[in-house]
């Protein structure tokens, strides 16, 4: 039996999470965060790090964006759009899963 294999579309209600084999890890030697993935290393920028840290499978994209808009004192809609597009890209690369 094959698993369901369709593209996930990220919407404000999606609850993103990092699959167990994707590791957001701080590298003390290089002084930066990495996302370790199969045969890939990603170098997230500071905003991406903040988003990825909040991807716990519980918080929705909208909640994450609201949280960030507050922390960064930025317009919610803008943050929400950026968050969705970043998470969609990472979902397409298999780095983020979402329900």
């Amino acid at each position, binding site marked *: 039996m*094959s698993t369901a*294999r369709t593209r996930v579309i990220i919407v404000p209600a999606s609850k993103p999470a990092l699959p167990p*084999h994707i*590791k957001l890890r701080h590298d003390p*030697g*290089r002084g930066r965060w990495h996302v370790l993935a199969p*045969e*890939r*290393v990603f170098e997230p920028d500071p905003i991406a790090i903040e988003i990825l840290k909040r991807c716990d499978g519980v918080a929705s994209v909208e909640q994450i964006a609201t949280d960030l808009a507050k922390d960064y004192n930025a317009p919610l809609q803008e943050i929400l759009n950026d968050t969705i597009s970043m998470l969609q890209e990472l979902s397409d690369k298999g780095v983020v899963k979402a329900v």
Partner: protein
Amino acid sequence: MNEIAPMEQFSEKPVVEACARAPVGLLAELTHRCPLQCPYCSNPLELDRVGSELTTEQWQDVMRQAAELGILQIHLSGGEPTVRKDLEDIVEVAAKAGLYTNLITAGVTLTRDRLAHLKDLGLDHVQLSIQDVDDVNAEKISAYKNGLAKKREVGKWVRELEMPLTVNAPIHRLNIENLPNIIDFAVELGAGRIEVANIQYYAWALKNRAALMPTRAQVLKSAEIVEAAKERLKGVMVFDFVVPDYYAKTPKPCMGGWGRGVMNVTPQGRVLPCHAAETVPGLIFDNVKDRRLADIWLNGQAFQMYRGTSWMKEPCRGCPRAEIDFGGCRCQAMAFTGDPANTDPACKLSPYHDAFVAAAEQESGEQTPPPFVYRRMSPVKAPAAE
């Protein structure tokens, strides 16, 4: 977000800030033993024998040193890494040291219990190679019976154990027409990623080039197939596509640049800038038994020799692509031009380029390719008679 693909021979972003201090990836060739005999194997023609392999403790020490050095990902390869009974002991130490662990396997010697145990010990990812999705062809390529059925089974276990799976499909003349089926096979198997990896012609593949080289038309068609499949399977399966550089105009940034992002440890413990580096004369390869990994990376003669751009001659010197492709591949320059400091013959600026392309066109155009020279250990020399 920057994306680094340290183990690919073709990388769009070879200049990686993370590599300045240390490599991001280490390819650990745990053994050269393998039940398969694929004629394009990347191992050297002269294979290391079982008695000369590093011990469990020595490999564990390599893992700890790799993590200390700042290496992020470890690729456990071979030969077939699962023929080592101590693979678990090595994976356990690597995972505890904080390395991202990737098992590169043909799958035929795995059991479900073993895979489950490896997962428990911290194995992060499985890369399963396939030869073809046609049983007869798969057997002809690997000289191994019923391998494909076993690979289907391994794929099923990986999925049941909820581990991430990459299907690695080396592509060449014998299976390139099956590419659409190979892609479908990977989707059905549950792979999140596929490497459609045209053979790179070194070692055994170079010896078998005339039997393996696809035509230019076949390569172009395969690129179209991959592009269409990428779009159709967006969000389902990630593609990495490697083309044969014989049909290219610019060389690949081999290994992302010499001594820049990756190091390779052979079964005997020799530390190489790439797996084919032993074909380049004039290099001194240090061994992990004699010298620390960090010292070898920073100061080893073999790593320093072609690191950066200062070793370059014309037309690489001063070329605007010098720090993009680093002059391509030293091993290919050596094999085709006799001088490893020449530009890679895949570059259109190389005086050898036309002959290089002509070789591929001529060989791929032959109606009847020569038989394979299978990858086997050379016979042990009998002791000389008194």
